[in-house]
């Protein structure tokens, strides 16, 4: 097991947002991607399995396996472009849709703009959820008063 380097790029950001996009919206955009394209070739999946979540703990700074996470993965060839997707949970249709959407952008297909809008909307939604979460959490920060 080797440590995976952290990286950020437009492609990995897009894959990340497609992995977390709302399933219903993803299906609509994927249908748009497929509307005027040949049927995509599925290289593998979508299949359900697990990935191991390994942590580095702070006391000895050593690794240990915390547990596994259920995921669905697939790889497709769409518009002559190969794309891969993985989403958490058991959701074959959404994972296939994510891979198709990713390939659509990489191939600069006609529905690429719709995919980019979905990516942007997903980012906005995740940020809004997080902001709303903090709005609820922040009042629970303890403010101590020094007693004379």
């Amino acid at each position, binding site marked *: 097991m080797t440590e995976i380097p952290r990286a950020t790029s437009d492609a*990995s950001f897009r894959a990340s947002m497609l992995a977390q996009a709302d399933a219903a919206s993803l299906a609509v955009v994927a249908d748009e991607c497929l509307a005027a394209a040949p049927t995509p070739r599925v290289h593998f999946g979508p299949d359900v399995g697990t*990935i191991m979540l390994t*942590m580095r703990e702070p*006391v000895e700074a050593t690794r240990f396996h*915390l547990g596994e996470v259920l995921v669905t993965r697939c790889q497709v060839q769409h518009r002559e472009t190969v794309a891969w997707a993985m989403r958490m949970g058991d959701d074959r249709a959404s994972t296939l849709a994510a891979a198709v959407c990713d390939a659509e952008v990489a191939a600069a297909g006609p529905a690429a703009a719709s995919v980019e809008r979905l990516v942007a909307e997903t980012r906005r939604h995740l940020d809004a959820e997080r*902001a*709303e979460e903090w709005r609820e959490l922040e009042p629970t920060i303890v403010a101590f008063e020094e007693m004379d």
Partner: protein
Amino acid sequence: MGYVAAKGGFDAIQAAETLVRRRRIEGRSSWLELDQIVDRLRYSVDRVMGEGGLWDEQLSARAFRQAEGDVIEAAHLIRAHRSTLPRFGYARVVDADEIDVLRRIVPAFREPPGPQLLGRTLDYTGRLLDQTPEDEGRRQAAEAAANRRERVVSTQVSADEPTVDQRVPGRLIDVLRNLDALVDRRRDDDPEPVDISRVAARPGAPRSARLSTMARAETGALVQLWYRNILGPDRNLHEVTLGEVRHGRLPIEVQNPLTGETVPIGSVRVTEVEAIEDLDGVEEDRTRFDVGYGICLGHNERKAIAMANLDVAVDRAAGDGPLEQSVLMTTDGLDASGFLEHLKLPHYVTFRSMMERKTAMREAAGTKRQERLAQGRSDCEVTDVSGDAGAPVEREDVLR
């Protein structure tokens, strides 16, 4: 009591299984949706994931529903299901410092780096049964859900953004390290962690095996073992203070096989605890503290606290006594419950064999008694070989 081979019960077993399945579906109320279970019974869902060793809230809710609310049975279903799934690989190794907190308290220190964030906790709620009428409860739930949806839609992201220090605060142990008040156990090597789903953890196992074992141990077993060591006869724990208690999210990042780049695909919630132990042993560094670590999937503070305490206790025991064995071999809910529940299966042959031993011993005792009587010696000199001195030998025919 001779042995007679017998078979049967198949029809009864099938009927019992059908009864369970039918009554689970029938019920007297409407179908219980998975989203409801995830949303309303989160502590149970989290326990099932933690003890099942697999993160997926929907799957956990499905198992919990199938098990009719039995957490250990549900965890069993999850582990059985997991064993049928391929493992695609490993997520990027996550550092504990990456936890994005939803709750964080430091009982040991008033002003740690970052906030004392109470978050969503039952710690300060009165233990009074909420008797809101059902119709009123439904109305309140619908109204609250609609309000939340509206807030998320209209939230201005930049307005309330927390600082990094607030969501990913520094650790108390780093403060203690800077004060040179902590035994430094950080290792330079990076041993490969043990995968306890492939290799059974036994005493002498590396610490990674111990942490993994406790992370998916049964909550009650860990709490009981902790309590036994604090107040019971074992006494491997004495003066523990909690450093960090956190509930938060850990990112899940995987490698795209086509690009080699890391792709964040979501997060899992975890509970994390650091327990500070006051070292007082003769051969210990009594000028410093030591720290134990506990973490588990989901929100389960009792479990993480017990785990952190037991982690440092096992280290301090250093192989002396049975604590490590207890942690590694008696805290798994499936192991313990499986062994216990197997007692309900037919043990006819086992018990018949035991009965025959009793009978044989009684017969041996009776023969010896007759011999002694024949030799003119009294009953009180007869050695009781049955171990059951009160049982009259004359009743042995009852057992035949």
